[in-house]
């Protein structure tokens, strides 16, 4: 018996005593997650608390690491698109866009204007969809359950549009190297127009519900503030950076896919607190609607994918009459196209910030390295500084306004 007690005593002594503010206080280490509804995914957070005040946070990620980058190395360039899309599962058009953009730059392929416009329409619909999921789930974290239903109603409308144009609701594989999968179906444009008329009204309703709501205001205002300079040092981009007043948006700064053809504004905040983050994303919905309307209005005629038969599949009807088309089809489907050796980093503005894809080609038909610079992964580094010395109750609100997507973080 004595042996056991001695062991227990020894163990108690071995453990370092937790240091607190005074003799009667001590720090509490709290494990949050990986399964926690407010973590927006499988995120584990080790939180050190001094009473109600957060002293430090250690994010632990990797629970949904599926080796997508490794898998992509084992597939032909065009067959890697579906796996790459599955990284950040709320921004699949963006993932496909940045990957295809990188491969197109390596190939030096020109994307036809119609394809660029169709990409923009889908990217902006995807941005609204992503913001809808963010708004619904983050307001759920603040206790507003009806917002969740409203936002998911709009999300469903967008997913129906995706299904209409590509056959899939999520992970659509719509964006291809050299263009898009197929032209928009008859009647789709009218449905998108109807959605564009409806969406600003819905966004107005959300504003009416939330912006005069005492609970929302008190929980979001002046919480989670990190100054702009520090945000830049931490590599934070997207709505989080814009909320501090820095109007950095790659759609304006380095326009890709014809974004310079459209007239839109970049919403910025002033203080950089959670309320500004909420307002910036909310205002982005209106801007995205404006871009979609303009892109539909000015949608150019012409091919929807490059005519370069070495990269894009020939039209189905040519296979019956043209031997050359048959050869191209066979080569593309079996081996895929070969890409000249080189390395490219291709950044675009995702819903959460700079989403970049690095592709290294060794000259074969499979990418030698695919790496995604995911904004959630980089932005998560700022989370500790946002919540330190704040209350544990603000912690969840700040995490919701950070909008991390664990599929993108872990890849």
């Amino acid at each position, binding site marked *: 018996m004595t042996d056991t007690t001695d062991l227990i005593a020894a163990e108690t002594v071995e453990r370092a005593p937790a240091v607190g503010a005074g003799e009667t206080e001590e720090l509490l280490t709290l494990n949050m997650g990986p399964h926690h509804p407010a973590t927006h995914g499988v995120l584990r957070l080790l939180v050190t608390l001094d009473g109600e005040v957060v002293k430090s946070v250690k994010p632990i*990620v*990797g629970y949904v*690491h599926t*080796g997508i*980058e*490794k*898998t992509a*190395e*084992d597939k032909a360039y065009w067959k890697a698109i579906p796996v790459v899309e599955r990284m950040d599962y709320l921004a699949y058009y963006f993932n496909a866009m940045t990957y295809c953009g990188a491969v197109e*730059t*390596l190939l*030096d392929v020109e994307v036809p204007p119609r394809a660029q416009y169709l990409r923009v329409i889908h990217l902006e619909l995807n941005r609204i969809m992503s913001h809808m999921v963010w708004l619904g789930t983050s307001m759920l974290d603040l206790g507003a359950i009806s917002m969740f239903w409203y936002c998911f109603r709009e999300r469903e409308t967008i997913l129906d549009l995706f299904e209409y144009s590509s056959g899939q609701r999520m992970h659509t594989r719509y964006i291809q190297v050299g263009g898009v999968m197929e032209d928009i179906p008859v009647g789709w444009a009218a449905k998108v127009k109807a959605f564009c008329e409806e969406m600003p009204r819905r966004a107005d309703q959300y504003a009416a519900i939330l912006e005069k709501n005492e609970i929302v205001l008190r929980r979001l205002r002046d919480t989670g503030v990190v100054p702009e300079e520090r945000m*830049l*040092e*931490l*590599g934070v*981009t997207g709505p989080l950076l814009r909320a501090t007043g820095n109007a*950095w948006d790659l759609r304006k*700064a*380095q326009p890709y896919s014809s974004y310079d053809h459209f007239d839109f504004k970049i919403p910025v905040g002033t203080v950089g607190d959670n309320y500004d983050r909420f307002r910036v994303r909310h205002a982005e919905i209106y801007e995205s609607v404006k871009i979609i309307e303009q892109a539909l209005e000015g949608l150019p005629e012409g091919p929807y994918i490059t005519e370069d038969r070495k990269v894009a599949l020939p039209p189905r009807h040519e296979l019956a009459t043209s031997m050359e088309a048959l050869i191209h089809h066979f080569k593309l489907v079996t081996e895929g196209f070969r890409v000249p050796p*080189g*390395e*490219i*980093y291709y*950044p675009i503005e995702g819903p959460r910030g*700079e989403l*970049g894809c*690095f592709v*290294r080609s060794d000259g074969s038909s499979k990418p*030698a*390295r695919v*790496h995604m*610079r995911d904004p959630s*992964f*980089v932005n*998560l*580094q700022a989370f500790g500084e946002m919540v330190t010395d704040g209350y544990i109750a603000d912690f969840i609100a700040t995490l919701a306004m950070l909008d991390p997507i664990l599929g993108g973080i*872990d*890849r």
Partner: protein
Amino acid sequence: MPDAPGLELIAQDLRQADTESVVDTVYFRERATLVVAAPAIRTVLGQLRDKGYGALMSVHGVDYWPEEPRFGVLYELLDMDEVDRITVKVRVPGDDPTVPSVTPEWSTADFQEREVYDMFGVVFPDHPDPRRILMPEDYEGHPQRRDFPVGGEPVHFTANEHDTPRYWE
């Protein structure tokens, strides 16, 4: 992007400060890349920061196997005022993959260098928190290496757990 002569001018400036620093310049598809000797990476990134490239947007690890030097670490720098990007690349040999950590100067490199270590086994000696980030802490090997096979690891289910030696641990 700096154009090809602009890239050479930057390389010249850096070589004037340290003749050993810039190994090579690559200009490909209108993207500029500086290839830098691994020991000089911190000073080179510091000098580029003084030139205006104040933001480090991304750090990638690359395995050039079977080429030597085997590993590459790429730093994507961005000048937000001029809207200009430049890539800085470091190549390190496979038997001693060591790159000085830039995390003390660039906080954003923290997670990204950990990811490069996790996936490729490139060591960053001065990193404040040199642990794995995506793979489990007790994992052996570095899965993004080119000689690491895809699907080489058995998946554990209740049905096949007895095939794994000491599965209960």
